[in-house]
């Protein structure tokens, strides 16, 4: 099949874009996901969509392509463009403009009248053009009704269609909100579609700590949000990010957990078989299939509320038991900001002031090991660390010893 910059299926390009953006390590020869030709095509497509953000490096292992962008300096997520590259047929695009035009101005027409209008008004002017039959037109009208572009009404044996324009709605009044939420909302790609309809989009915003990669999972997120809204069980097709193993899980989807400090997104669902709350990374989910309405949805939501009270991040630990942890922190006379840091970053647990320059943070969480990265951000101030999981205390000390070794122990020389 001839190369096209448009794509039918999003999954393969999703993998390549993640590789180029997050890692940017592999040369052409190292891509074993597909053939070299497939790699060439995907790289060429991505270059066509967002070439100005791509970089290249040539070394002994070959040419390496990577996506590098400081997301603080750009108004729009370039990865959204991948969602604007869906392939279509000549018939699709032609019928789209004909149908929208025929029904423009509030007209109400039957399937037969639309099919006739397409022939008489437009196609009769072209000698070699295709002539869609009524069933092709009917299929397209139903598709557009499902998308919400048209509404239908049955009169006798005929179905009549009308556009769904609402003159009361003014998209231009949303320009600034769209500029903000198209980047900040987890499903911001929808805002990006809307911005494309604006004559003069807003350029008022920039975003710090802005993780743009999640946009590639928008399709999965959208399906999950629809299932959550409909309180429906879902079957997930998952590909393990570490082992590459494919598996399926049937869960009751409850919440989307999002890390603002890594951009990772997770589904929290009740897994029927294991009878446990389970997290799934959205970038590992390949497909979501909605199932039946869950009659006990509110009961599972109550489980989630209780469960959340002792979650630090998204780990439940090996056995769903709680670890108790206490960290005593020292701060100087001019360092009250440390107290404020603890208060705003602690998520759960308590902060207790012990004296003018010392305070203690304590919490009960499912997996205290998950807290280690945060605890290390107080390095240089931790007077003592106690945890019911001895492994957590040990790891903190071992890591500190290794860091001392890395940076030259007690010496002052810079390597």
């Amino acid at each position: 099949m001839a190369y096209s910059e448009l794509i039918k299926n999003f999954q393969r390009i999703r993998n390549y874009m993640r590789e180029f953006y997050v890692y940017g390590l592999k040369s052409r020869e190292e891509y074993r996901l597909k053939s070299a030709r497939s790699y060439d095509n995907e790289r060429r497509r991505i270059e066509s969509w967002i070439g100005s953000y791509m970089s290249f490096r040539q070394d002994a292992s070959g040419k390496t392509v990577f996506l590098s962008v400081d997301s603080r300096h750009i108004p729009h997520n370039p990865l959204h463009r991948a969602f604007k590259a869906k392939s279509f047929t000549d018939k699709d695009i032609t019928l789209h403009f004909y149908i929208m035009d025929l029904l423009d101005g509030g007209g109400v027409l039957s399937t037969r009248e639309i099919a006739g209008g397409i022939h008489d008004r437009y196609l009769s002017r072209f000698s070699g053009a295709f002539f869609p039959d009524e069933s092709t037109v009917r299929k397209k009208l139903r598709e557009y009704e499902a998308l919400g572009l048209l509404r239908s009404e049955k009169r006798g044996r005929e179905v009549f269609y009308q556009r769904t324009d609402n003159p009361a709605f003014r998209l231009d009044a949303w320009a600034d909100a769209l500029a903000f939420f198209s980047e900040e909302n987890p499903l911001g790609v929808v805002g990006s579609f809307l911005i494309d309809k604006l004559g003069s989009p807003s350029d008022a915003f920039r975003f710090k700590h802005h993780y743009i990669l999640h946009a590639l999972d928008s399709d999965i997120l959208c399906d999950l949000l629809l299932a959550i809204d409909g309180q429906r069980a879902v079957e997930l097709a998952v590909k393990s990010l570490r082992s590459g193993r494919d598996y399926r899980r049937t869960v009751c989807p409850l919440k989307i957990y999002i890390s603002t400090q890594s951009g990772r997104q997770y589904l929290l669902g009740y897994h029927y078989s294991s009878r446990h709350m389970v997290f799934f990374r959205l970038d590992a989910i390949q497909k979501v299939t909605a199932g039946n309405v869950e009659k006990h949805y509110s009961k599972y939501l109550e489980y989630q509320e209780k469960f959340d009270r002792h979650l630090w991040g998204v780990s439940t630990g090996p056995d769903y038991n709680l670890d108790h942890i206490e960290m005593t922190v020292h701060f100087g006379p001019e360092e009250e900001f440390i107290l404020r840091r603890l208060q705003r970053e602690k998520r759960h647990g308590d902060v207790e002031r012990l004296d003018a320059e010392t305070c203690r943070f304590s919490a009960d969480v499912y997996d205290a090991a998950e807290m280690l990265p945060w605890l290390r951000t107080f390095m240089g101030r931790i007077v003592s660390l106690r945890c019911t999981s001895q492994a957590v205390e040990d790891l903190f000390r071992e890591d500190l010893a290794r860091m001392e070794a890395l940076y030259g122990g007690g010496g002052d020389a810079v390597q």
Partner: protein
Amino acid sequence: MLFSEIYGSYFQTVAEVLAEACDGTLTERRMTELVREKAFAESALTIPSALKSEAWPLLDGEYRSVLRHKPTMPLTTLQRRWLKALLSDPRIALFAPDAAGLEDVDPLYAQDSFVFFDRYADGDPYEDPVYIQCFQTALKAIRENRKLRVRFHGRTGGRHSIVCIPCRLEYSSKDDKFRLLTAGTGRFGTVNMARLRSCELLEPFDPKSAAPPQGHSEELVLLLHDERNGLERVLLHFSHFEKETVKLDDGLYRIRLRYDKDDETELLIRVLSFGPVLEVKAPAAFIHLIRSRIQKQSRYLREDAT
């Protein structure tokens, strides 16, 4: 269905081409210009030829549209439901968009469908009328290229009043805060919106003469020892920076990333959070800061052990 051609660049670009054709102003050259401007880099090879060859029979031989109207399209259900869901976001108060036309629409999701589990708890006060007024005034100033007088309390509590050229509003999801980025105000280049007490629109300025503030960019060089899934964790965590990663050996990578010198302390603790997985190789001043914290921490733990 989110991945659909009706949201695609091709449909959007062809609509713009047809709109110009309806005006009678379309030429072959203009069509190519529009495609280059609106679509993808290689679209100029496909869209004009499909229109000219009548594979997409939408233009006649004189570059006139066969349609009766300029192309338009209603919002899809997905778009309407997404907009309706935004109305429940507390930050929508800052924009106060006209919600007319969305009355009978079901929101796509409830606001509490999302849990931002590591977002800081001291976010901006989006319901405070003074905050909303300052935000909207600043936004208007940016939109209309007008100077601003802002009055605010500094970090130490001191009161300030400055005239500034507003460039952008910068938002951090982690901090849940907006900052006003300004030009020509010396040390007050960035002001937290939550600190503003008042905001007053002043005279227009020439946007060409007001360059947005450029941070003092530095390069951080890190060695990554890939253990405990460190490669993925580190690269995702720092993915919002401009960076380059090179594999040096099995399980050993070098990362170069550019950062704003003003954010050095924040970056320092982010590097520390990865423990021995990350090793700073440059700049020297950054290594000194890391070493100092490690040495202090070691002393505390030795004291604790005795």
